[in-house]
């Protein structure tokens, strides 16, 4: 095998990432066990928790009667085989729970990030190019408002105004009641409905997707406009851009071939981090729209001291973060030769 610098870099990164994942699971395990409160009582209900036999059976079933280091070791061992344990709340394997929760959050996150990139980068470029003029001020105002709005409040107001008062958006959840979800391919209802050719379901899923996505988009648009603007501004003042314009190259060429390409680096970082944040922290929006995604799963799990579920979410979030960081770093290398791994 050709041991190119890239491969060596990847392997090293993967190794470090694996260690980090283990670190995340260890920290999650320790923290969740530090919390005062017995998950048994929380999940069995008061009457059952008084019955010693029921409690013993429960603890045995979930392996809670073994010493903590053994529990952790068992968890890691199972993890290597792809078994994330069973949720004490839903009584289903955590992996199955995540398989339905993750695509739900993914739908909102992808929608929000795509919209945000299209709008935010566009706004940022316009603002940078028309610096100091009205368009610039207006767009910067929009961006500042966007990052200032508390998302939980916006979700509430949006739901109240658009769904309740104006009846422009459908109610809570991912689909209208009693609508059967499309056959599972990815778990993204919109995509699966398209693949199955169920147009009505597609429309319904899309309609339900709109409001939560738009609420999340506002913040990310604000963020992206801001960073795009400053990244583009920085590049516009570079000598090579000035010389390109002096050479008489058309504006559009200068913009796309030189400016955006150079500005991509910081923009990508922000996009990557924003996407990661969207995937791991949409709890508030999901609670308000009754959207069964990772955020509300994490919140329910943490409230009930459901250790396997909490570990599962921690794992998921950690992996997302590391993968995104890796991709962003690799893209850095692809776009900016100066940063390329030597």
């Amino acid at each position, binding site marked *: 095998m050709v041991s190119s610098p890239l491969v060596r870099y990847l392997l090293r990164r993967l190794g470090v990432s694996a260690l980090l994942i283990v670190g995340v699971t260890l920290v999650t395990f320790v923290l969740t066990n530090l919390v005062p409160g017995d998950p048994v009582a929380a999940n069995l209900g008061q009457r059952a928790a008084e019955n010693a036999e029921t409690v013993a059976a429960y603890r045995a079933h979930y392996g809670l009667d073994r010493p903590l280091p053994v529990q952790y070791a068992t968890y890691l061992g199972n993890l290597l085989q792809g078994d994330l344990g069973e949720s004490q709340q839903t009584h289903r394997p955590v992996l199955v729970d995540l398989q339905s929760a993750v695509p739900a959050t993914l739908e909102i996150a992808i929608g929000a990030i795509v919209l945000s990139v299209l709008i935010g980068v566009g706004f940022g470029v316009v603002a940078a190019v028309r610096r100091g003029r009205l368009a610039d001020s207006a767009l910067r105002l929009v961006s500042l408002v966007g990052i200032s709005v508390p998302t*939980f409040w916006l979700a509430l107001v949006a739901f109240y105004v658009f769904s309740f008062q104006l009846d422009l958006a459908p109610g809570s959840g991912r689909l209208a009641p009693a609508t059967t979800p499309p056959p599972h391919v990815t778990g993204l209802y919109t995509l699966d409905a398209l693949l199955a050719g169920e147009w009505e379901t597609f429309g319904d899923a899309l309609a339900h997707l709109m409001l939560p996505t738009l609420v999340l988009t506002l913040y990310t648009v604000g963020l992206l406009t801001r960073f795009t603007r400053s990244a583009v501004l920085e590049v516009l003042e570079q000598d090579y851009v000035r010389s390109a314009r002096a050479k008489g190259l058309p504006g559009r060429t200068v913009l796309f071939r030189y400016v955006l390409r150079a500005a991509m680096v910081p923009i990508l970082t922000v996009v990557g981090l924003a996407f990661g944040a969207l995937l791991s922290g949409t709890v508030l929006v999901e609670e308000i729209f009754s959207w069964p995604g990772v955020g509300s799963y994490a919140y329910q799990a943490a409230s009930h001291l459901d250790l396997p579920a909490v570990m599962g979410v921690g794992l998921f979030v950690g992996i997302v973060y590391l993968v995104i960081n890796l991709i962003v770093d690799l893209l850095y290398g692809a776009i900016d030769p100066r940063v390329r791994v030597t």
Partner: protein
Amino acid sequence: MSRLDGPLRARFRTRIPQAWRTPLGITGAVVALVWILIAVLGPALWPYDPLTQDFARLEPPTGAHWFGTDELGRDVFTRVLAGARVTVPLAVLLVGLSVVIGGVLGLAAGFFGRWVDETVMRVTDLVMAFPTVILAMVVAASLGASLLNAVLAALVVSWPAYARVTRGLVVGIRQADYVLADRLLGFSPLRSLGTDIVPMVTGPVLILASLDIGTATLLLSGLSFLGLGAKPPTAEWGSMVATAIQNFDSWWMGVFPGLAILTVVMAFNFLGDALRDALDPRTAGVLGKAETR
């Protein structure tokens, strides 16, 4: 990085007043000032007591109660004003602590390099990979829900960003000619740090910090919204919005505290933006926290 040459302090003195003369800067300064006054003057401005439950419940805004009353018959206007004393100082405290802790660690990592750098960076990776919600809930459950514990939980997830930025800045500066020259002249590492590096790092970090007060406010009110922050019956904007969800029809219960959060955050963001614009439009640092959205 040609624009970071020259003493930063002088530029502070001339540029800051200039920054605040822009429309954005002025608006931000005025709104921030109003809120700070509200926080400082406190009880002098309150028409009623924020804890008194004497009034008719769930009344819409009227002349007697500008923002209506809540589910326990308390005046919402007073509670919104009282909330300023809670959220704003804590957000500033959170940012301050993050800057100090993150800054010190980032300085160490950037300056001493090698294993110090590796360790600090791996720890920041670990922390940033952690889901904020779970961490906050664990802290709240173990230590009890309180504002200080919420600040603690928020602190744990906030310092890594500052550590990263500071480290990046230090790494950029420590190879600069004047730093090397001073080392050759015999400056000890500590003196080099104190005289050459810290002054150059403080500026950008402070700019980021000022931009971050808004985010800190959002984070803290988000945690209170989840029930992990203010202890009842304290008037705190985030928890007021959370209660408002149960009383959808009484829109005034949620709209006004939310507007309060919005205006405070906007004011600080405007200010920070104007500041950054004046001093260096290129320090569009990446803070990259996993937010509670």
